[in-house]
């Protein structure tokens, strides 16, 4: 009986650690993708400013409330604008930014293929 009791406790402790580790990982991921707006050139994760510190606590709170990464980005984007995100989301304003590398890749590939094709013939 005692053994079962202890194993249940150990199971819960380990599980709790696993959850908090996952939350921490998500928090790190989110704060690394947030730009510190008062200390440009640094992410919220790297910065020691009051602003970055508050954002880190804010993100931690939102994660513990069960909000998703997307919801947190959306919330901060609404407050501070798209600039706060290092990785801008796909929208009318950013489609060129996202599609240009793919377009260049396809175009480059097509040119290389064409050169090879022409050389063969």
């Amino acid at each position, binding site marked *: 009986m005692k053994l079962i009791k202890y194993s249940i406790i150990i199971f819960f402790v380990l599980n709790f650690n696993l959850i908090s580790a996952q939350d921490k990982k998500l928090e790190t991921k989110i704060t690394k993708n947030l730009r510190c707006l*008062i200390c440009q050139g640094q992410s919220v994760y790297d910065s020691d400013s009051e602003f970055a510190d508050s954002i880190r606590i*804010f993100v931690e709170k939102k994660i513990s409330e069960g909000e998703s990464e997307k919801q947190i980005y959306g919330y901060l984007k609404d407050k501070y604008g798209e600039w706060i995100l290092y990785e801008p989301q796909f929208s009318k304003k950013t489609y060129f930014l996202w599609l240009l590398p793919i377009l260049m890749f396809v175009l480059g590939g097509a040119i290389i293929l064409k050169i090879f094709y022409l050389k063969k013939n």
Partner: protein
Amino acid sequence: MKIKTLPILFIIIFVIMFFLFFKGLQNSNIYTPQTNNEKDIPSFKAKMFDIDNEINSEEIFKNNKFYLMNIWASWCLPCRDEHIFLMKLSKQKSVEIIGLNYKDDNKKAKKFLKKLNNPYKIIFSDKDGTIAIEWGAYGIPETFLIYDKKIIKKIIGPINDESFLEIKRLIQ
């Protein structure tokens, strides 16, 4: 496609890229926050500054009048500079000044108000800075002019002669 078209294609791509990057160079890379965007005020619960009680934001901004929400702290030097303007504005009947005490020590904050006078009708505390984030604040001091539960003007940094006159014009 003939082989001669390839160099032309390269030139066209190069010109497009050059034009794009050249245009990009002209854009300022210094971030300027938007201050005139009308936004709804956030909904939050906060601890009152002088009593051990929690207050709901809806209770603070419930009337259809002008509110001036000022983020301040006793450790913030520019807050001392703008305090004189807040005192002047507190004499205006058309506006109610609300204070958000940011990451501050209660004792020091009380001392600050005792020395410089208290322009605030209600003060609530933000110990970890998350309420300021809910407001979309960058740092302190920062002031928000609110009407009908909407932020109509945001002043980043201390209130100066220019912003003081603008607030006065807006609330009249």
